[in-house]
């Protein structure tokens, strides 16, 4: 067996990445109760270097969630201008420069210098992204895709960690600029947050005061560079079998051919999905991707990228129907 391609510290790196995910998960679960599924997806996206769109109602804890995530990641480069966490509240009168930053004239030096906007952070909470004008949305989405902003024809790179948690309110649609499907494509996951369980809600009330006083400060944090390292580890060392690729492509083709779907999923979504699958596998303590990960992530990855035929409104049902044959083929191949 050719062992030269396997670094000696592969196991260690995987263990470290797994530990990092566990640490983050513990902190977030401490900060926000009854949102285990959302936390899991959020961390999966973080490890997969993808952004997340949360669809929820006000007061569901999204700011708390994003802020807790920002808190959990320790900035190990305090001297630069990038902070751990920023929240941008999108409004119709917002301008692109309000989020990217502006070039200002410095009378002391007699030159223009760039003052970074709120995008220059590890974690950015883009609140109610559908309330702002398309040009701001476009600037935001460029930043998300390219990890850089361009101001006055000068490109400024964003932080390598740069992770956006965008939200939109599914109900209050008046006066909004709904994101087109093309822009939905830039988000790895769209997560719909529903009201939490009764017990969890009770738990929220019981622990409110205690959490306000000590927002998980006693729990360990992780450093920014360790998150970046974990991302690389996941991408390099979690194995994706060729059969998984086949399964993904077959699923996508099946969705495109479905009469219930007018626009199918893009190739980019499949490319983006690979690290997400790897991250999901890692979070479950595996160093290989299985059908389980595909089944788990498919609805979150595909649902917001599809346009459904008139009269069809349950995307997850369509996805389940379309992906089942490919999933079954993949599963059966493991018994031969």
């Amino acid at each position, binding site marked *: *067996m*050719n*062992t030269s*391609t*396997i670094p000696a510290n*592969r196991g260690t790196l995987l263990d470290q990445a797994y530990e990092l995910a566990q640490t983050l998960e513990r902190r977030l679960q401490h900060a926000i109760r009854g949102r285990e599924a959302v936390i899991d997806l959020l961390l999966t996206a973080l490890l997969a270097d993808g952004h997340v769109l949360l669809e929820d109602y006000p007061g569901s804890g999204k700011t708390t969630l994003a802020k807790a995530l920002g808190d959990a990641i320790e900035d190990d480069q305090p001297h630069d201008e990038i902070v751990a966490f920023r929240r941008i509240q999108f409004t119709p009168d917002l301008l692109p420069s309000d989020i990217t930053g502006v070039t200002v004239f410095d009378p002391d030096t007699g030159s223009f210098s760039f003052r970074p906007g709120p995008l220059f952070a590890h974690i950015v909470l883009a609140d109610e992204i559908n309330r702002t004008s398309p040009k701001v949305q476009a600037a935001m989405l460029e930043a998300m895709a390219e990890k850089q902003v361009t101001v006055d024809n000068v490109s400024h790179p964003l932080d390598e960690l740069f992770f956006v948690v965008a939200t939109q309110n599914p109900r209050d649609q008046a006066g909004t600029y709904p994101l087109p499907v093309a822009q939905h494509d830039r988000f790895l996951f769209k997560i719909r947050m529903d009201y939490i369980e009764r017990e969890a809600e009770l738990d929220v009330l019981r622990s409110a005061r205690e959490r306000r006083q000590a927002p998980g400060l006693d729990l360990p944090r992780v450093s920014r560079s360790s998150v970046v390292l974990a991302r690389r580890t996941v991408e390099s060392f979690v*194995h994706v*079998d060729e*059969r*998984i690729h086949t399964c993904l492509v077959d699923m996508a083709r099946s969705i495109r051919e479905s009469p219930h779907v007018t626009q199918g999923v893009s190739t980019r979504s499949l490319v983006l999905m690979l690290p997400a699958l790897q991250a999901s596998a890692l979070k479950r303590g*595996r*160093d*290989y*991707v*299985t*059908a*389980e990960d595909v*089944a788990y992530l498919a609805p979150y990855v595909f649902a917001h990228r599809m346009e459904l035929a008139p009269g069809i409104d349950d995307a997850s049902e369509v996805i*389940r129907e379309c992906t*089942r044959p490919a*999933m*079954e083929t993949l*599963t*059966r*191949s*493991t*018994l031969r």
Partner: protein
Amino acid sequence: MKVDWNLALKRLVGALVWGLALAIGAWSISVSTGILGGFLGGFAGFLSGPLLARTRLRTPTILVGGSLLGAVGLWLAGLPTRSRILAGLFGPELAYGVADGTTWFLGGLILVGCLHAATVRHASFMAVELALVCLALITPLSAHRDGFISRPHLFVDPLWSQGWDPVPFLMAAGALTAATLLVLSVGRFNRRNTLVDLGLLLMLAFLVTVLLPLNRLQQLAPEQKPMGQNGQQEQEGKPPPPMEQDPNGKEKPRQKPPEPEDKGEQGQPKPVALVLFHDDFTPTDGFYYFRQKTMSMFNGARLVPDTTGLADRDVPSRFPAAGPEAQPGGVGIVPEPTDSSLTRTVRTTVNLIIAHPLPIGLINATRMEASGNPDPYHFVRAYKVQSAAFIGDLSALMGRRAGNPLWSRQVWSHYTRTPDDPRYRRLANEIVGRLQQQYREDPLAQAVMVKLWLETEGTYSLSQRILDSDDAVARFLFGDKVGYCVHFAHAATHLVRSLGIPARVATGYAADARYRFEGSALLLQDANSHAWCEIYLDGVGWVPLDVSPQRTDARPPPPPDADLQRMLGQLARKEAPSQEGKPQQKRSLTELARQVLAVLARGAGILLILGVLAAWAGKVVRRLGPYFGPESTRPLRTFRAALDCLADVGLTRPFGDTRERFARDLGNRFEALAPLTEFRMREALGDPQNPSRPEGRELLKHYRDLGRQIRRSVPFWRRFLGLLNPFSWLFVR
């Protein structure tokens, strides 16, 4: 409430399809209440299928429970005819109708309900449903085979005129219809197209409209039968017409066979019976005589059939019965004692084409037995006849005494009684007086003399066919001597009787032996009907004394159509080979199909047994997997054996679920499944460059744990049944 019209329409169409299919299936084997019951049962069954599928009952439970319920239901439905009280209450017709209607309704409801419930759960049951629908449709078409339902003449007549048996064509039409339906219904798997269902419905409606008017016609009018070459339709009595019981012969059956020499006005003769000869026999005088009836009793005015029961006991008074009523000797024939050197046994089978009140048989019949009707479409009935046929020349009978010395005085007088008219005696003596002295006392010579005299003196004419008045024979004999065979036969009988020779008039058919065309089949036509005189000679029995006048104004009966005779002979011979041990020359298509089916069925049985054995072998091999074989594939074999164990007790992964999900769902009962799954998945999907192979001992430990967990949570009987089931592992996927 929002109504899903598309679904409702689909359900309605499906229910109609099933209802019509059962109604058509009931058509050929049930009465009108059965058809209605079948329709309602299929309709309701289809609608109740989805409701049943929504319950928590498992599919095998539904199927087995449905069968049991169906058995109980059918038993209950049969009560009106079985229970004396209920049958008495309803009356026989109503009781039968109620029983049949209930049977079809309950049977249809339970069958279709359970089956459709299974189809809703597993699409593959659709195949069973379709097969049953097709079967229901083919049944009425295949029922044509035995002529149970009226024939589509448009279809059948052209075939007959070409000499084809239409049965294979009808079967082919049925199969074609079924195939079309099948092709149409394959579209149903998509479950999106109501158009396909509507197409199915149209096909069924077409079948209904085709069958409905024909059935009505059959009930209104007597069955019409197309006949080969003459193209005319012969009236065919379905039930054998009532026997001619009245001794006066006045009461005739409604559809009567031809009277002697009754050629009617039509130029074309009609076939009446087909006789198959099993022994090659050609009579010396060139004519076959087939006797049907005799008239020997002189009632003071005319000759009538015997009513005393003492005479003519060699002539059967009824047809030989088939089935349980059959008697070993056939019908009650008391053959006359004969000298075996003068006769030989000739075996024939008579296939009646039109109904006769009495059996006909080659003289002199000694035995008649029922025989299976080889082709109910062509023949009314068939029976076997054994005859003691006279061989040799008439001259060999010279010197024999007339009558039987053992006869009682009563029988003697029965056969020799003549009208009081003295002219008969006078004329007879005058005729006999012409004989040479040495033959003058010989009865045969006397009788032949009478025959010769009548042939010389008489004139045969069909224009004189009146025999209604009592003195018609005297008027004929002592008048112009113009008459037809009945006149001559009566005249000869009276003359011969007045000489003291026992005689009688026999009617039936006489056929020229040449027209057998050297074949074994002889077609009798109405033109062959004949009457002749018979005299009794000691040791020989009844000998025909047929008068054929030299002067005649009628043409001899035309020969039968050779092709028709041969074709009918082939049809009639259908049953013969098995009984006669002769090799079959030409098999019919249906018979061939039956044999092919038998071979196929045997093959399928063997295949089934082999399949079960192979399945068991496969099961054993897979179950031993964890213990033998190379180390590299041990996780796979252990995992497979574990899944087999679970399949034995009915636990298989639902379609579309992942393996991990399956292991999780069963986790609380079978904890050992999860590690086994993980080992296998790591082996299958993990990085091949970084393998982590588990210890064989560890795998086996989990495998044994699983066995323990199964024993703990599954009852013994379930495990035992699972162990016996050879196919359980085939459901592992």
